[in-house]
């Protein structure tokens, strides 16, 4: 084995190594957290839609996002059902209203999802099976992962939604979204009682299931052509993408996290650069000696680059495990659906490499000044 000069250099000055490792680890951890929150935001943004079972969504052309859906006439449903490939179509009503915490008597935004209890609009068939429970007046299922401000939302609890008495009869699991910190599922009838301005005739979304093998894109465009201008249809993936794009691009949530990532990358780069420049400065004569011994310039550069890589990779490992721990804490304490995935690990490795590359390239400029003729 060749003499591991970079490795030895990396650990020679203990304080410097520690600064490098901690600085870079912190930066990588920050990247993990920012990307984690970004990922959670993406998940959060479509938490409601993700629960729903549909291939194509029919909405009003005015539909912007979950908080501003618009509605369209139900009497045209038959036209949609008659389109080739459409298997079923169920209406859905969604609206945000003030929910009263029965203990503190404070009001909080609650997302109400209303279904026809006879239909099976959810992907979770167990949940579909429990829909008859809310068929009775003023009954609702509540989200088990709601924020604590909403008070206890277990079965048997009663409170008010827009001054209308509601009784919780069970729970489902969704997770707090961006429009509201909690959600309930009710029947269409309860919903219309609560929200006076809503109409039986004007649902907010039509959930279309298509025949196996049919093309959702083709059916969506057919529906759009048929229903224009009162409604428009989007495939499941387009519908979800639009919702994510709204929260992450139109709203500044995405920018926020991207800026956070950028700041973390810059921080890591600066720390690594400082450490490497200090290293090059103190070892300038040693690098010159390498050249005098007959090592090519590229070898001398690689000694520094490898040292940068050693710091980066070694900082990555604790940063990874720490972020797993922090994800767990955040998930448990803040109910943010933050999870590690392979893509994110890859992204962070990529960003770490970019960080390392920038820092070493910058520090190599300093190395160009090393001249073996100065050794004498």
């Amino acid at each position, binding site marked *: 084995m060749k003499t591991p000069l970079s490795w030895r250099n990396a650990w020679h000055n203990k304080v410097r190594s520690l600064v490098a490792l901690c600085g870079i680890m912190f930066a990588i951890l920050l990247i993990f957290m920012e990307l984690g929150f970004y990922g959670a935001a993406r998940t959060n943004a479509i938490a409601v839609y993700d629960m729903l079972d549909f291939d194509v969504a029919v909405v009003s052309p005015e539909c912007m996002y979950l908080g501003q859906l618009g509605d369209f006439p139900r009497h045209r449903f038959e036209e949609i059902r008659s389109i080739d490939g459409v298997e079923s179509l169920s209406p859905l009503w969604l609206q945000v209203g003030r929910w009263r915490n029965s203990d503190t008597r404070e009001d909080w935004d609650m997302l109400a999802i209303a279904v026809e209890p006879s239909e099976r609009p959810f992907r979770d068939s167990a949940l579909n099976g429990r829909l008859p429970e809310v068929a009775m007046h003023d009954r609702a299922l509540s989200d088990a992962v709601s924020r604590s401000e909403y008070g206890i939302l277990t079965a048997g609890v009663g409170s008010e939604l827009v001054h209308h008495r509601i009784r919780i009869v069970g729970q489902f699991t969704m997770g707090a979204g961006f429009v509201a910190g909690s959600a309930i599922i009710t029947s269409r009838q309860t919903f219309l009682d609560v929200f006076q301005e809503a109409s039986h005739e004007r649902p907010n979304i039509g959930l279309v299931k298509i025949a196996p093998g049919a093309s959702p894109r083709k059916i969506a465009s057919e529906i759009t052509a048929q229903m224009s201008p009162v409604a428009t249809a989007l495939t499941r993936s387009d519908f979800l993408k639009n919702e994510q794009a709204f929260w992450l691009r139109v709203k500044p949530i995405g920018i926020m996290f991207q800026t956070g990532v950028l700041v973390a990358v810059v921080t890591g780069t600066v720390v690594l650069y400082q450490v490497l420049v200090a290293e090059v400065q103190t070892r300038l004569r040693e690098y010159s000696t390498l050249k005098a011994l007959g090592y090519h310039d590229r070898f001398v550069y690689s000694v520094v680059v490898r040292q940068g890589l050693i710091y980066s990779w070694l900082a990555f490992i604790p940063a990874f495990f720490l972020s797993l721990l922090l994800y767990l804490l955040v998930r448990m304490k803040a109910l943010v659906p933050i999870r590690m995935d392979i893509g994110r690990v890859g992204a962070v490795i990529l960003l770490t490499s970019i960080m390392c590359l920038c820092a070493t390239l910058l520090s190599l400029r300093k190395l160009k000044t090393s001249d073996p003729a100065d*050794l*004498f």
Partner: protein
Amino acid sequence: MSAEAATGLTVSMKRVCHSYGSKENPKQVLHDIDFDLMPGEVAILTGPSGSGKTTLLTLIGALRSVQEGEAVVLGRRLRELTRAQLVRLRREIGFIFQAHNLFESLTARENVNMAIELTNCDVHERDRRCEAILTRLGLSDRIGYKPNSLSGGERQRVAIARALANRPKLVLADEPTAALDKLSGREVVDILKTLALEEQSSVLIVTHDTRILDLADRIIKLVDGRIVSDTSVKRALLIATSLQRCPIFAQQPIAMLTEFAAFMRRESFDPGEDIIREGEAGDKFYVIESGSVEVLREKTSGDSEVARTTLGPGDFFGEVALLTGAPRNATVIARDRVEAFTLAKEHFHEALQRSKTLEERLRTALYYRS
């Protein structure tokens, strides 16, 4: 290339000049350097500070590019080499610096290995060579130590081990003993000398350290970027012993005699050639290295008879005319091929000036001779 390689010289420099600074405002520090180094030769380069010794060393070591003149090192013409070739050439040269320049994070063994790893040798061979050289330098029990746990002398010896590990055919050292005490300095130079003998390596040492002068085969003196003297110690010894046989120089310290030797140039003469002619103005003093000459002098009695004397290696002639300023009082003809060292008039006087007593004795001697 082959022409130089065929001469077998390790270093051959012809009319090498070097300037620092910009093109518009150059500062020339080396002027027309002619300089050869033979395999197995240990040469010492001295001269006042700023005379260009280090510059010359870095040129030979391919650490600086040659601007003007011709430099052939280890059979390669430096100006024709690419950057990469220059770097590879350095692998065949051992550099020893005044500062040890060791890799601080590496142990003695690893420092030496860094040099050996530039050659194609396997790990076992590497470790064997590394241990051998370190042991040879008396560092067998310090192999696993890093520079900051070694003494100054030990560090310098590790640096020397690193420079010599690949048995370079050329070793360039700049003040290698400056950081060392007398004993370790001596040791270091002894090692260099042994390497030169065993491997027929050429060693060029820049030094002001007079304690190591005796190791040199040659002493080169640089002043203001010019070689003012390039003395073979053997030659100096020949000249000095010759001079000692002459009554006028006999009592002089050997240092004085080598001073003369330093100024002397080598000249050769064909058989039958007149070396000096009677009646001409004298401008040189001669010491015969090899061959023999005949001295023809008209008898003082005035007849046409001539006195003939034969002189051989170690003999000298021509000093009288130089000293008195009178025309040559004899003719000297080469009998066969003659190699002689000559001392020009101005150098002769320069050396004389340095010793009044010598001049007096010279005059007395001349009195007896004439």
